[in-house]
């Protein structure tokens, strides 16, 4: 095998190189030559090409994401201990604890090989959290597929769900929530966004940097094989249409057992105090880990690539650098600690090898068989990649779409029509029970899960003594975002915020996973810019910083982009998880209140989608002040024990919220339509900043008094009984057998069992 060394590169400046195939543009290649003062070696080219890919460099999104950095770097309960730019944001939650959470997409790999794509998506985000110094304590998954009855959905969905479950269950991380959404734009472009949350003591925070000349660079975990070579630049940055099957690289296969060992081993390494710097290996593998560690450090780094343990001895140096083999980590360790480091790895049966050293050269140099194959300034690889100001423009079709309002669609009016509409809605793919999916996830492991599916947010206990805990929800509504991406991002934020708030938690921080089409389409780029602007403005208003996130572009098939899908995750804090509010109605006699105002809002609604296959008009109005007020009311109500259940109102409106609340414990409810409201609007409108709560009779006066004092709209809409029916007085009544059948049969009958 002839190796392209720095020496050869200097001597053969004219040699042609496959920069275009690697996804680089002509000017990018020129820039690399300028930086190096010569042509890059093939190893350097590999490195730059992966690190300058859209996925790693955020070159199209960076200029917009800056808005998040301008937000206040403080949450309602404390400081950000690490923010955007680190592997994941870290939030002080009190009592000396810090929480870190982040979402990441694994969309295209999950289309190619659903099980492994989804599994390795979970594995990747878990390592991000681990690399911050935290113990991972929970995962969530936000999933989007083509229509439920499409043949490819039957291939992709079961594999993705089994992969999320297979990996997360085997790691022993409770799955505490997520989403499953169906829309035709996701055919051929499913979205698999995985979120992980971890907890640490403040002093355990670790950062990804290589400093201290003489410190050793240790690669530990799985051996390096030919997995997903080029996956980052090819898989994540180009659409399938243009690349075709020939360019599909081999898929990465996950080994969750290895990852479990890696977690326990790494936590023991942290506890032993032998880690000076740490970085996970994800997309772009060693290229990314070495250049990012060196770039964030204060000197340089030298790596001997021959020391990397290989699964396949025929790999070339550029392939070793690009390999995306899973379950690997890289640590910077002081020489005196190396022995202890190795002992701990041996205890966990984790292979570890010193592959390099931190130095003061200011360069990242990589040696292979005694010759230098990489000699670069690390910042130019990791942090100073290209930045694009992509043109963006409000798409021409938007006016027409917004003008096609839903107000002219025929509505049900009689009680019978409302009844059958409700049954049809609760059985529809986006509103039906998710149990087929969530039953495949372990929600109990670790013994701290206070709320998980089918609750609005997952709630985890952090501390047995104080009861300190967190709540988490992830949400997005692509149809809303299509109608108005600025509002759509805020609506996603509002829903996640509200889902956290209904548990009684105080929402404090935000992460996101922004899934869009091609940035080379000015219309898509505009959607992206608007969504970022909307999310940043929304976060400013709510006082919740964006602590990190992920961007996935090029989600399109041919010219058809997915619905713009800004997935937003909100983290909340509960001082005592014993005070959490569950979503299910349990006690007959408790009074049902609707909090918030209901307007006639059906643009982008589930009703328009299910009944009329219609998408047009404007999404429901955003009112973040009201969301904030609602959250405070719920927080106080939980503290003072004023409500026995609370469920947010979103997709499918009050009808959906009531159905979910009554079915939870199989009680019953009698509901009446408030004066002055049209029954259809009352039941199905998707107005925001609303929740349905159950109030014990003795607390009613205090509860309504609190709402009045805050001038927050609250309407008595019903009472819990034990009749086993949902009755809307004067309209209709449905027995639970029928209701359950409608709500629970959809996924099993479409997917089997």
């Amino acid at each position: 095998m002839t190796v392209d060394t720095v020496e050869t590169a200097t001597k053969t400046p004219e040699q042609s190189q496959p920069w275009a195939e690697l996804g680089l543009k002509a000017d990018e290649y020129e820039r690399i030559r300028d930086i190096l003062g010569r042509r890059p070696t093939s190893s350097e080219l590999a490195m730059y090409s992966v690190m300058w890919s859209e996925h790693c460099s955020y070159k199209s999104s960076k200029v917009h994401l800056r808005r998040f950095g301008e937000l206040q770097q403080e949450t309602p309960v404390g400081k950000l201990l690490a923010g955007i730019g680190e592997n994941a944001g870290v939030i002080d939650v009190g009592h000396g604890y810090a929480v870190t959470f982040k979402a990441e997409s694994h969309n295209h790999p999950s289309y190619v090989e659903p099980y492994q794509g989804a599994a390795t998506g979970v594995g990747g985000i878990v390592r991000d959290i681990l690399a911050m110094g935290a113990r991972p304590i929970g995962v969530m998954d936000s999933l989007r597929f083509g229509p439920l009855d499409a043949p490819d959905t039957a291939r992709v969905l079961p594999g993705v769900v089994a992969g999320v479950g297979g990996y997360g269950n085997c790691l022993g991380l409770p799955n505490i929530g997520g989403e499953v959404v169906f829309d035709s734009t996701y055919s051929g472009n499913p979205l698999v966004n995985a979120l992980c949350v971890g907890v640490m003591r403040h002093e355990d925070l670790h950062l990804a940097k290589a400093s201290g000349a003489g410190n050793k660079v240790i690669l530990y975990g799985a051996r390096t094989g030919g997995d997903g070579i080029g996956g980052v630049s090819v898989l994540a940055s180009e659409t399938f249409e243009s690349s075709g099957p020939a360019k599909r690289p081999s898929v990465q296969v996950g080994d969750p057992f290895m990852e479990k060992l890696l977690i326990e081993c790494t936590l023991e390494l942290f506890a032993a105090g032998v880690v000076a710097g740490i970085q996970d290996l994800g997309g772009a593998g060693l290229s990314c880990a070495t250049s990012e560690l060196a770039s964030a450090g204060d000197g340089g780094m030298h790596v001997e690539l021959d020391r990397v343990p290989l699964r396949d001895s025929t790999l070339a140096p550029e392939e070793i650098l690009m390999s995306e083999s899973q379950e690997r980590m890289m640590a910077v360790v002081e020489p005196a600690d190396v022995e202890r480091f190795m002992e701990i790895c041996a205890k966990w049966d984790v292979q570890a090898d010193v592959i390099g050293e931190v130095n003061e050269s200011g360069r990242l140099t990589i040696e292979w068989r005694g010759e230098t194959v990489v000699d670069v300034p690390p910042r130019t690889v990791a942090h100073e990649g290209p930045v694009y100001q992509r043109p963006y423009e409000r798409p021409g079709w938007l006016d027409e779409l917004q003008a096609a309002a839903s107000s002219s669609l025929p509505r049900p009016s009689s009680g019978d029509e409302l009844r059958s509409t409700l049954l049809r809605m609760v059985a529809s793919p986006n509103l039906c029970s998710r149990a087929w999916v969530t039953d495949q996830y372990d929600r109990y492991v670790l013994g701290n899960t206070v709320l998980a599916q089918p609750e609005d947010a997952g709630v985890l206990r952090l501390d047995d003594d104080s009861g300190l805990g967190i709540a988490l929800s992830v949400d997005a509504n692509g149809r809303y975002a299509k109608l108005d991406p600025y509002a759509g991002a805020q609506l996603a934020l509002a829903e996640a915020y509200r889902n956290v708030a209904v548990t009684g938690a105080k929402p404090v921080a935000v992460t996101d996973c922004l899934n869009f089409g091609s940035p080379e389409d000015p219309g898509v780029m505009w959607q992206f810019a608007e969504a970022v602007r909307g999310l940043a403005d929304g976060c400013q208003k709510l006082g919740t910083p964006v602590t990190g996130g992920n961007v996935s572009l090029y989600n399109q098939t041919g010219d058809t982009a997915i619905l713009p899908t800004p997935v937003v995750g909100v983290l909340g804090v509960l001082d005592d998880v014993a005070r959490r509010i569950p979503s299910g109605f349990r006690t007959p006699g408790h009074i049902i209140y609707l909090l918030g105002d209901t307007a006639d809002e059906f643009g982008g609604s589930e009703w328009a989608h299910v009944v009329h296959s219609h998408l047009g008009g404007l999404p429901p109005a955003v009112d973040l002040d009201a969301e904030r007020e609602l959250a405070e009311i719920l927080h106080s109500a939980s503290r003072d024990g004023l409500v026995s259940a609370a469920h947010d109102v979103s997709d499918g409106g009050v009808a959906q919220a009531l159905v979910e609340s009554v079915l939870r414990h199989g009680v019953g409810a009698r509901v009446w339509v408030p004066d002055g409201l049209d029954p259809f609007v009352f039941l199905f409108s998707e107005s925001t900043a609303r929740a349905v709560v159950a109030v014990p009779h003795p607390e009613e006066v205090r509860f309504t008094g609190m709402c009045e004092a805050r001038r927050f709209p609250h309407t008595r809409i019903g009472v819990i009984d034990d009749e086993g029916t949902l009755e809307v007085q004067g309209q209709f009544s449905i027995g639970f057998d029928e209701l359950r059948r409608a709500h629970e049969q959809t996924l099993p009958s479409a997917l089997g069992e």
Partner: protein
Amino acid sequence: MTIGVVTFPGSLDDGDAARAVRVAGGDAVRLWHGDADLRGVDAVVLPGGFSYGDYLRCGAIARFAPIMEPLIRAAHGGMPVLGICNGFQVLCEAHLLPGALVRNDHRKFVCRDQRLRIENASTAWTSSYQKDQEIVIPLKNGEGGYVADEATLDRLETDGRVVARYLDVNPNGSYRDIAGVTNERGNVVGLMPHPEHAVEELTGPGTDGLGFFASVLESLVAA
């Protein structure tokens, strides 16, 4: 009273099992798979999880861990041993319990709150329950189908060695709805569902699982 909880590589519910022991009023001692030493404990829990990734067959690799030698000896000598989920699989692989656990009949992992009937309330781990008592505890497994040949099943039935049976639904295709079995002496119990996830109101479907840990503590005091 000290109850050992073994950690194999890939054990997941070891912390929960130790917590359950403490909630029930016992002292939990963590045991490491690689040490052939039970550290003087009075009873042992083999916890749930995916030991060795559950590759090959669940429990098949863990069964050969160094800790299993003294454990098998102690079990033969009458020490109470409870295998939960993966631990049950390990006990079957070690032939401390008859039968085996195979892939769920629906081929998916399943996590649900499961109703059970306690059929034998005289083992070391079930004495604080009433016979025929119904309880709800979480179940979560991918390979939880209990199988054995007909003769073995018949023998288990006539000897009263079926410890617990699934009610409402059979979640994994277990023969005769069997959720747990015991050895002849009643000191070794294997259970597919997870009592350790039902010891606190806050984090489980109730506290019905506590009885398993209370039982063994009582039986140790009585002994």
